[in-house]
């Protein structure tokens, strides 16, 4: 069975500090990977997606970057956090072979920027 693990579970960071969030998928080879962001009370907004190692496409510019250093790993980062980065960050995977594929979400990281 496939599992998706996100870390950390929660972070409280200062404005201007760096950030790195991680996501690992086990049990599935070459999945499509995604980062989503959910502001408090807001909708799910796709940030990045990746269909293969080393390739990441940006969907929304939020002064964040993403990388896929390994087939099963997806990293979200920034060198300088803004207050507006606060929210819930979700990593997800799908098979990506058709448009009808289900998206499987991790349990998320709640980020508070002070």
């Amino acid at each position, binding site marked *: 069975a496939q599992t998706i693990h996100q870390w950390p579970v929660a972070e409280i960071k200062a404005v201007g500090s760096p950030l790195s969030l991680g996501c690992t998928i086990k049990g599935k080879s070459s999945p499509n990977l995604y980062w989503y962001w959910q502001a408090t009370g807001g909708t799910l907004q796709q940030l990045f997606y990746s*269909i293969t190692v080393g390739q990441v496409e940006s969907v929304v510019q939020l002064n964040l970057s993403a990388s896929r250093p390994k087939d099963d790993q997806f990293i979200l980062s920034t060198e300088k956090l803004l207050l507006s980065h606060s929210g819930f960050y979700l990593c997800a995977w799908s098979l990506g072979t058709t448009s009808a594929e289900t998206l499987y*979400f991790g349990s998320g990281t709640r980020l508070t920027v002070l």
Partner: protein
Amino acid sequence: GDSVTQTEGLVTLTEGLPVMLNCTYQSTYSPFLFWYVQHLNEAPKLLLKSFTDNKRPEHQGFHATLHKSSSSFHLQKSSAQLSDSALYYCALSHNAGAKLTFGGGTRLTVRP
């Protein structure tokens, strides 16, 4: 571009009454439609999705019918339960592996 509209941000119902959450969409292509549900402090998970052969998907008592003529995929259930209280997202996809566009979400609260 693609867009999904959920007109109700908040729906409050009494247990046992029927549920209908609205979802309309705009897409240049013929998309697949999804409903995701997110319970408090949990990650979103798939509730149901449209079929290519126009069958009506059903899960946990919920169903939705894709009406291409009106670009709608409303979520329905005949009798609400307390455990149905959650945030419901309608979403569409037409580009395999690229993007899933979510609506604004509808928070359903079911009261005793």
